[in-house]
Each structure stands twice: as structure tokens, then as C-alpha cells.
């Protein structure tokens, strides 16, 4: 499988990465090189094989459903580009 220029633009938008028209051909070439490389997986017989979903067999750990942290708003917003009284500020979302 390989991707065309339209698909490259679609993936970039899904990934929320701005791509200029000038960058598309180059990216297309690189993505297709990677896709050609992974193509060899199609020759593996995976009939009846379960996908690996856990690296080491272990039961999912659950912690007690209690509040054990908090009241650290200052620490949480301290690295934000724009804030106002412990809120993150973003460009207007709702008209």
C-alpha cells in the first residue's frame, strides 16, 4: 500500500500537524518508504494468532477509589503558555 498527496494531507490533519503544499511530496516519499518497509509483514501467517496486548502477563492493578492528591492547581498551570486564575486559556472555541 502507498499513500497519495491527498492522503498525506488527510493524515497530517488527523495528526493536527500543519503541512505546507511544498512539504507534501517529500513527506509522501518518506511515508511510502516506511510503508514499503513494513509491507513484508503481509507474508507472515498470523492465522489464529492473538494480538499481543500486554507485555508481561499480569493482572491489571487497580488502586483504591479515593482522592489521594490534589489542591496543586499552581503546580499544574505553572508551565502553561496562557492562564487566568488557574484556568488554561485557549483561542475562542464557541462563537
Amino acid at each position, binding site marked *: *500500500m502507498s*499513500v497519495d498527496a491527498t*492522503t*498525506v494531507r488527510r*493524515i*497530517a*490533519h*488527523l*495528526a*493536527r*500537524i*500543519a*503541512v505546507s503544499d511544498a512539504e507534501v511530496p517529500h*513527506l509522501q516519499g*518518506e*511515508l511510502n*518508504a*516506511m*510503508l514499503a*518497509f*513494513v*509491507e*513484508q*509483514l*503481509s507474508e*507472515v501467517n*498470523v492465522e489464529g*494468532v*492473538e*494480538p*499481543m*496486548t500486554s*507485555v*508481561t502477563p*499480569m493482572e*491489571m*492493578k487497580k*488502586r483504591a477509589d479515593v482522592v489521594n492528591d490534589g489542591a*496543586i492547581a499552581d*503546580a*499544574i*498551570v*505553572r*508551565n*502553561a*503558555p*496562557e492562564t487566568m486564575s488557574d484556568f*488554561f486559556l*485557549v*483561542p*475562542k*472555541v464557541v462563537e
Partner: protein
Amino acid sequence: MTDLTSLTIAEARQGLANKAFTARELTDAHLKAMEAARLLNAYVLETPDRAREMARAADEAIAKGEGGPLAGIPLGIKDLFATRDIRTTACSRILGNFIPSYESTITSQLWRDGAVLLGKLNNDEFAMGSSNETSCFGPVANPWRRAGSNTDLVPGGSSGGSASAVAAMLCMGATATDTGGSIRQPAAFTATVGIKPTYGRCSRWGIVAFASSLDQAGPIARSVRDAAILMRSMAGHDPKDTTSADVPVPDYEAAIGKSVKGMRIGIPREYRLDGMPGEIEKLWSEGAEWLKAAGAELVEVSLPHTKYALPAYYIVAPAEASSNLARYDGVRYGLREPARNIIEMYEKTRAEGFGAEVRRRVMIGTYVLSAGYYDAYYLRAQKVRTLIKKDFEDCFAKGVHAILTPATPSAAFGIGEKGGADPVEMYLNDIFTVTVNMAGLPGIAVPAGRDAQDLPLGLQLIGRPFDEETLFSLGAIIEQAAGRFTPARWW
């Protein structure tokens, strides 16, 4: 007095205990060496004030007889580990001037045991790379050069700063992380020892995430013993990481010098690649002979799905990365590019903040997870991963204790030499190491020889889950036979 920076951790520990020198003197010697070695670009941030303060505290603790196992030992920390109140960037523009308000579990355990922070070490952006050339702080130079040449070589990656700093004696040991070979490949390129522990052995909490089912932290050091000393402090169960294993941490150092008599060492035939340089082949059989001479038994084994590990990795790792890196959106931390609306703000911020390699991997990851392609790519890769893991399980079930392979397909290469036209050329560096991440196993790289141009080469030992001790025992045999290698100082 001998140069304090040339000591191993084990030697420095002895010297501090005997009052031959103080932690402050040891730290000052390293700070001075770092200043003189800025040409290597191994550190992206030096923290001399913090270092001196920690060294002073270590001296006090030692005087009171309360020094921890790493009291006064100066370390470098890969810039992927969050360090409280100290800039942490993953060497990406998108994190900008991020100052964590928390400390990663691993580094907090190192400070608990008395270690001293010298500074933050360079790495490939978000640990995506095999040469440390994708860092937003620029490439790191390998302290090793080809005989008679002054061409700068890469130290490997992604833990290139860690490997370069340890080899150049700019710290006694360093933290590193390994998603596809990022501890073991740079260790092999710089004649240092690097171990990627079993998945779950070390907490991932507070480490910038790349591919969460593959990422695992470990140490890079100048000897097998030093790596064992650091591992003991880094390992351990952490309730803050749900994949952290609740198993006891052994005294890894005790494994060094243990007899390997009767151990069965697997030599996998699939690692004998077409066109593999003769010197790699020679190194591999030499390593096997050393283990045999120590009483181990060599057995040929088969890991039939080896060749599919790297392509499967280049689906699984980017897929997980595209998900993990979704958090960099210009809202809560790091870079923000101004824009008219929020979508444009995300897109411009991420285009500006991510480097080329990261953009490429996030896009591939997005594609293989997108509707209509998920089954063909991602699900298939996860099934292939099951088969890769099973190859190892079958091999261990036949009584094999560890597997010996080359660490890398070549010695260090020049900065700018690889991956310019085709990204896959660079990816092939991890061909011997990536299988280990796919299966979640421990692997150690130990310096074992030199190539025709006098550059270091390493061997890799792969172990059973949670059996790092056997790797330390076997690694020590190789180290003893091969000797230790130190680069000639040119910086």
C-alpha cells in the same frame, strides 16, 4: 592524586568510604571536566549549584555513617526524565522551557540513595532516533574517533548524551531509556555498558513517554559492576506505574563473579545477516568462545520471526507515539503558536514544535491507527509481536539461560552520514536490539572489541524475564576477557 573522573563507581564508593576524597571533590572534578568538554554537546543543561549542594549533603551523610548506596556518586540524567524544578525538554522544541513540579520515580530513587545530579543529558527528540541527530539541541559527538581521523562520529541514540558523557568521563554513570535499542546501541558505539531491564522492572513514571509498551529505563556505566550498582537503585515496584512489576529487586552486584558453568547460551542463526561485516562475525564467535571457556555450553537456537521485528516495531512504536504525543497541543505546557482558532493553533504549534523525525513518526502512527487501516497494519503487527515473543519463550523453554548476539550491525558512523534520503537506513541500526523490546525481555550490551578502524564494538546478551542477574554474570565474563576501552582525549 589520580584523576577522580576516571574512577569507576565501585572505586569511588571505596574512596569515599576510606575518606581518600570527599563527595564535593568528586563532584567538582566532574563539573570541571564537563566545562572542558562542551564541544561534545553531551549535556543540554549543567546544574552545578544543585550538584554542589547534593555533594555537600552526601559528605554530611557519609560523615555520620548514614550514606546511601550511591552517596556522593555524580550522575548525568537523560533529558527524558522529569526532574523537579529543573528544565526537562525531551530535547524537543515543543516542551520549550518546561519545568516539572515533580520528580520521576527513578531519579527520586537515585537521590534517595545519595547520588548527585550533574545535569541533563542530550538525546534524540522524544527518544526517536539512533544517532542523537534529531535533538533540538543539535547532535552529540562520540568521544571515539576512527584511528588517524578527526571526523566527528555519532554516539548512537537515542541515549547519545548519556553514552558520550559516560565514555568521556563527564559523569560516573547515567540514566537512559530504551524503546528499540536506545540504551544498548549507544553503549556499543562508545565502549560503555548499557542494560535494558525487563519491561516492568523500572518505573516509567515521570519519564517522557514515547511508546509505552516498549519503553524501559536502565543505566549506562563504564563497567558491568557499575551498571549493576545503578540498576539496584533504579529498579523496583512503583504503584504509580500500572505496568511496574511487583517483584523483589535482587542484589545485582552479587551476580558478578558468579560461576556460569553449565549455563546454556543460545546462538540464534537468524542473527547471522547477509553482508554482515566479518569483524562483527569474528567478535560474535570470540564472545561465544569466552563464555565457553568459562564453562557455559553453546547451543544453536532459532528465532524464526527475527526479520519481522523491525517492520512490526515501525508500526507499533509510531502508533503508540502518535497517541502519547497527542498531549503536546500548546494548551497546558510548552510551545504555543498564535492562531485564529483552536484547530489552527494545534496544527501550527505541532508543526513548529516537532522536528522532522517526530512529525514523520506521528503521521505514520496516525495512519496505521486510522479507520480502514487498523487491521491491516496495527492489528497484524501486534499479532507478529506475539510470534516474536513466542520465539523467545520456545527457546528459553528448551533450557537456554541467555542468548548471545552482536549489539549493532556496525561501529559508530559519521554525523550526517546516514538516513538522509531514506529513513529506513537509520532504522536498520536497531536490527539486533529491537526484538528484545518487542518481547519485553532484558538485554545488556558489553564492550567486546574494536573494528579495523579502532572503533569499539559490543556484544548483546538477552535474558529470561526478570533474570538480569544472569546477564550481569555473563557480561562480567565478556568484560574480563575483552578488557575495558577508553577513548583518547581530543576535546
